[in-house]
């Protein structure tokens, strides 16, 4: 865990009420792994605690090392973040938590199941998976939300690495049918998991979605990892706030997670 003063490289309004910040943060970016998160200090007087965001992209070029965070504006912290401009400083703690354990290999078929803003860490997963072009697995991205206006847009592909931006890599569902296939993303998942011969699943989204993802993956015997969320104060494992039940025990989302194997999580408790 490091503490670093990052610099804002860009602020993009990605879709309705959703922003993407690219933060130049060399020390953290170089060690961050997909599925890990950072704790960000928001300098707004209506906030006190840091806010947790999954790393949604990590990059290195000749000039800089950066990480992205993608978030919805839902309160004073995210509001403050959405108003930052190029060159602003931002105090970050991270990278934190256990990320996704990635399996690579040309013969693998990976399914990413993203619900609404849960797409954020999966972008990082996709980036990592396509890095090794020789051993790149087949990747299918299943993205679902309630309606066209909720983070859901024809532009979702634009958030992912270029190599994956073909239509064939994406299946989009909306609950009200305003775009893509009508229905729940998990119904779509159940229908295609067999025919596509999926060998590994990575998911992130609302708990209800993850519960169903877990059931479907377990029924089919497909290894599945989910990223969970719970209110955090420290994000570093010292305060014991962010607990979820794994079996019979309380585990901390910030240090034991946020990524858990789907079959470990006590879904009946969640």
């Amino acid at each position: 865990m490091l503490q670093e003063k990052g610099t804002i490289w860009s602020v993009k309004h990605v879709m309705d009420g959703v922003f993407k910040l690219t933060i130049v943060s060399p020390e953290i970016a170089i060690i961050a792994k997909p599925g890990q998160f950072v704790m960000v200090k928001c300098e707004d007087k209506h906030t006190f605690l840091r806010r947790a965001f999954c790393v949604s992209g990590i990059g290195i070029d000749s000039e800089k090392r950066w990480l992205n965070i993608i978030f919805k504006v839902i309160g004073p912290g995210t509001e403050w973040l959405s108003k930052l401009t190029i060159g602003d400083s931002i105090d970050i703690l991270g990278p934190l938590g256990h990320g996704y354990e990635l399996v690579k290999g040309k013969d693998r078929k990976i399914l990413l199941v993203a619900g609404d803003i849960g797409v954020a860490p999966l972008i990082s997963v996709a980036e990592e998976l396509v890095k090794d072009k020789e051993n790149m697995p087949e990747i299918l991205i299943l993205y679902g939300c309630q309606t066209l206006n909720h983070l859901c847009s024809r532009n979702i592909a634009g958030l992912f690495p270029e190599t994956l931006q073909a239509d064939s890599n994406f299946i989009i569902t909306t609950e009200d049918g305003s775009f893509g296939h009508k229905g729940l993303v998990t119904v779509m998942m159940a229908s295609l998991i067999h025919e596509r011969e999926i060998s590994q699943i990575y998911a992130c989204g609302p708990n209800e979605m993850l519960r169903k993802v877990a059931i479907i993956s377990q029924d089919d015997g497909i290894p599945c990892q989910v990223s969970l969320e719970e209110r955090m104060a420290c994000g570093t494992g010292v305060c014991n706030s962010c607990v979820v039940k794994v079996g019979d025990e309380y585990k901390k989302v910030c240090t034991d997670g946020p990524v858990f194997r789907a079959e470990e999580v006590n879904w009946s408790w969640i």
Partner: protein
Amino acid sequence: MDLSVEIAGIKFKNPVIAASGTFGFGEEFAGLIDLNQLGGIVCKTITKEPREGNPPPRIAETASGMLNSIGLQNPGYEVFVKEKLPFLRKYNANIIVSIAGKTVEEYGELAGILKSIEGISALEVNISCPNVKEGGLAFGTNPVLAAEITHGVKKNTNLPVIVKLTPNVTDIKVIAEAVEKAGADAISAINTLGAMSIDIYTGESRIANVFAGLSGPCIRPVAVKMVYQIYETVKIPVIGIGGISSWMDAVEFFRAGASAIQVGTANFVEPRTMPQIIAGLKRFMEEQKISDIKELIGSIKT
């Protein structure tokens, strides 16, 4: 420049201590700050049996602070002694073990169990836990029970005994006096303030347990008052706790009568708070031409 203080026979190289429940067992922040710099670390409260803690949500943000209802989740004294204490002992900081019990007797029992364990500088007695026998009112709200617990712990240990007081009382002087009479070697104050918060849209309590403890900068003035009141009442040293997040806050507590301070909630927001306070105190003393920090203790002008 002397930042050292002596409390109940324990020498602290500086008066800055990590508060219980806010610093884990030391490993988490080891990469970020040098634990050797700290005057002391109070570990998470341990109990005889492991405790699961309360269901989440356990915390909520408030104006300049936060609510918590963790529920004393801890692995129990056995795991603490075997797995956590060895790590803490590597560091050149006083290790203070916070203890709690479900009954008055359990406090004494736990003190006895820890008697021969090496590496512990003092015990901090957490009497803010609910007394289940008395409908859940904290032991620390009752001067008789607070004294009984203090006496029970003192009887069963050779270590200095610091009693941590709860502010949720009518008159903290009464409790302070009672624990001093019962043999406490020092008092730390304050623990969190009883509070709650309701989500205006769902109508639900934001904390699953409903009632929670308020901490952070918003409680500091309450803590300063109580530290001052305790300082005026007892002869034993007082350790100040409550919303300290800067060296200025620390100086305020010293003037109110604190011999040392603990930093809690601030560690979540800024893990480097304690080293920053130590550095800030040194600068303040240099500017003010104070050669010994003990000159500040109780230096309020009345």
